[in-house]
C-alpha cells in the first residue's frame, strides 16, 4: 500500500473523491490497453510503465505506440503524439487563472496534472472547489494510469487483445461523460458540434493530432452563442447549469 498524496487524503470527506474515482476507473481501463499495446509495439514492460508516469497523456501515448507498431520511426511517433498534446496549452490556460500563484514547485506539479480529465472535471462545477477538484482528479489519474499501464504491460498476455473487451471505447465514452455539462448549454453544444464536424472532415487529410486541435475552432464560433441552458427531460429548469462562462469571479486560491 502506497501512501496517498496529500491532496487525496485531504479530500476524504468524499464529495470530490466520489467524482474522481469513477474517472480513475475509466482511465485504468484505458491504461491497461495502453500497457498491452505498448509492449506489443516493442517497449519493455518497464519502459511502457515509465512512459505513462513521465508523459501522462493517454491519447499521445497511443499515437506514439501506434506509429511504432506500424513500423514508423520512434521520433516520428513522438512528434505525432506531441501534436495531439498541443491542446494542453489551451487547457493549461483555462485552469491557470484558478490556480494560486504561490510556489513555483506547486505550479510545476499542477502543470503535470493538466490533462483532459482533471481540467474538465474541475471546470464543470462550482467555482469554490475548482482547484481541489483539479488536484484530486489529477492525483487519481496518475495513480490509475500508471498502475493500470503496469498491469497491462506485465500481464497483457493473460488479457489477450484489449479490443475484445471494448477497452478502446472506454476513452471516447469517458470523454463524452466529461463533455456532458457543456452539452446542456447552447454555447457548449455549438462548440462541441463544430469540434466534431471539423475533426471528422480533417481526419483523412491531416496528420493525427491536427484534426483535434483544429476542432478548437468550435469554441471561437460558440462565442457568438449565449450560455443559456438547454432544458433536458429530467431537468426542466436547467437548475444544474454548471458553468457560467465569462462571469466567473476570480479565485486566487482554494
Amino acid at each position: 500500500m502506497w501512501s496517498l498524496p496529500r491532496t487525496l487524503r485531504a479530500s476524504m470527506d468524499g464529495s470530490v473523491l466520489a467524482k474522481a474515482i469513477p474517472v480513475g476507473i475509466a482511465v485504468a481501463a484505458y491504461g491497461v490497453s495502453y500497457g498491452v499495446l505498448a509492449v506489443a509495439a516493442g517497449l519493455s514492460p518497464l519502459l511502457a510503465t515509465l512512459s505513462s508516469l513521465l508523459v501522462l497523456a493517454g491519447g499521445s501515448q497511443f499515437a506514439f505506440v501506434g506509429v511504432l507498431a506500424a513500423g514508423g520511426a520512434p521520433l516520428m511517433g513522438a512528434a505525432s503524439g506531441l501534436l495531439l498534446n498541443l491542446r494542453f496549452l489551451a487547457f493549461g490556460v483555462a485552469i491557470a487563472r484558478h490556480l494560486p500563484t504561490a510556489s513555483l514547485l506547486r505550479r510545476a506539479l499542477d502543470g503535470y496534472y493538466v490533462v483532459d480529465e482533471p481540467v474538465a472535471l474541475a471546470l464543470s462545477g462550482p467555482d469554490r472547489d475548482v482547484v481541489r477538484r483539479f488536484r484530486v482528479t489529477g492525483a487519481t489519474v496518475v495513480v490509475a494510469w500508471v498502475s493500470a499501464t503496469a498491469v497491462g504491460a506485465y500481464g497483457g498476455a493473460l488479457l489477450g487483445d484489449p479490443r475484445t473487451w471494448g477497452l478502446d471505447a472506454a476513452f471516447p465514452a469517458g470523454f463524452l461523460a466529461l463533455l456532458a455539462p457543456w452539452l446542456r448549454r447552447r454555447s457548449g453544444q455549438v462548440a462541441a458540434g463544430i469540434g466534431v464536424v471539423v475533426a471528422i472532415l480533417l481526419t483523412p487529410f491531416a496528420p493525427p493530432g491536427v484534426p483535434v486541435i483544429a476542432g478548437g475552432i468550435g469554441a471561437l464560433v460558440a462565442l457568438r452563442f449565449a450560455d443559456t441552458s438547454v432544458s433536458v427531460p429530467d431537468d426542466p429548469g436547467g437548475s444544474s447549469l454548471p458553468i457560467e462562462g465569462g462571469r466567473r469571479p476570480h479565485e486566487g486560491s482554494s
Partner: protein
Amino acid sequence: MIVLAVIVLAVGTYACKAAGPLFAAGRELSPTMQRLTDLLPAALLAALVATQTLATGSSLVLDARVVGVSVAAVAVWLRAPFAVVVLVGAGATALTRLLGWG
C-alpha cells in the same frame, strides 16, 4: 532510440501542459478570453470523442466503437454516473465484437 523518443515525448508534453500554470497562474483574463477558455475544452473534448470513435490512423472507420459510444451517449443523456457510462460503452463495444462485427 525508443527511450530517446519517450523522453522527447515526455519533455514536450510537459512543456505544453505546464505552460499555463507556470506562466499564467492566477492571471485575470478579459471576459472574451474567459469565455474562450471555458468553451475550448468542450470543442477539443468533442473532437477527441469523434476521432477516437471514428478514426483509425488517417482513415474514417465505422466499427464496434460506434455502437459502444452511441450507447454511452444514451447513458449520458439519462444522466448515468461516469463509471456506468464508461462500462456500458466498453461493454456494448465488446458485445458487438462478440457478435462478429467491427
